[in-house]
């Protein structure tokens, strides 16, 4: 039988140029990992897709213990206030082993 444990899944949609900066901040705010998917999309800043493929969207997923979420969200909000386009949303998820997501990335 599996016992399931609650975690928060943070989702960020933005341009791929921000990838390294965001990964840095995941490390800083104590995420145990992250997953990046290539994406295309449209929003308040118009279509974000081709432009010769050099300048596309990414969707980042970070599973993070609820108690570390607030600091991370604050940091994302600061980026948004500086003018960066980040679409952020949070989902409640359940995981098999919460310890995995308490460890920090090297």
């Amino acid at each position, binding site marked *: 039988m599996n016992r399931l444990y609650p975690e928060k899944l943070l989702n960020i949609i933005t*341009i791929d*140029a*921000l990838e390294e900066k965001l990964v840095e901040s995941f490390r800083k705010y104590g995420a145990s990992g992250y997953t990046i998917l290539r994406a295309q999309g449209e929003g308040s*800043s*118009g279509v*974000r897709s*081709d*432009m*010769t*493929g*050099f*300048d*596309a969207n990414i969707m980042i997923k970070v599973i993070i213990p609820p108690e570390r979420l607030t600091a991370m969200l604050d940091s994302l909000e600061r980026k948004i206030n*500086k*003018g*960066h*386009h980040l679409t952020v949303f949070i989902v409640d998820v359940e995981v098999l082993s919460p310890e995995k997501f308490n460890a920090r990335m090297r």
Partner: protein
Amino acid sequence: MPSISNLLLPAVLFFVLGIFTRVIKSDLRFPPDLAKILSIYLLMAIGLHGGNALAKADLFIALNSVMWAFILGFTLPIIGYLILLATRKVGLLDAAAISAHYGSVSAGTFLTAIAYLDNAGIKYEDYPLIMLAIMESPAIVVGLLLAAKARRTIAARKSKAASHGDEKLALTNSDNVDNEEASFTSLLHDAFTNGSVVILLGSMVIGAISLPSGMEKLFPFVDDIFMGVLCLFLFEMGNVAGKRLGDLRQVGIVLALFGIVMPLIGGVLGVYIGLNILDFSVGGATLVAVLAASASYIAVPPAMRLAIPEANPSYYLTLSLGITFPFNVIVGIPLFHKLAQLNAI
């Protein structure tokens, strides 16, 4: 009449076909990575080719060309910025982001110009190739400086308002300035280590120092199939540019005109510098004109996204790819060539 026959070059025709596929709303879509792969190939090929030629070139002229590339790269965005402010159609930060694109260059336009000159049997120097590699970077730097200035102006305006009110705003502003300073070095670094710049300069060095016997084996790859790959690349760029045509309405007539006026200014400056200062042939001066007239659509947009996130990408993408690029390919190149011919006499 070169201006008509230019339209009958396969490279130009494929660009037009690319636009056409969008006009008729064809479902043709290129795989996202194809343009990137083709760009890598094209930059590598012109780099190798140029380096090979430059190995035998005059160091003084080369350095002089580099200096003028820097001057053009720094001056053109400032001209563009002032014009944009005069139009009063965009904010300060949008003006900074847009004008940065015009200090940089478009390798696609440059290559079309080479195809055009080759086809007409016109000789040209290899120095514009180094200029091509150099000009990506200063434009990004100027864009950053203009944006920094713009932000200070905006902050000044706001703090005037704030002096009557909220203390917290001033604080936030100083916060921002901190972060800006910190990231300026990193953006400077980005400007000079940009992928396109590295491929171009790196291949140039390799082309210059490689053993001749090794280089020979590369020619079928970098020379023979080059024109075909360029056609495919311009086909795709036409497809992308065609998509941007739909955004023209959003950009407005004044900004659209800016996308034609800037290359005309750049082209005239370029012909003058090429002929009278750098003492190039008509072909070489045409290439300098194309460098000055063209706007980046590969290296600068992502840099501006990061550096000036407040600016609207639709503006600069539509201008550089939807207006200036087609204008240069179809009208600019033969025009600047004609101009160089007339002035050379």
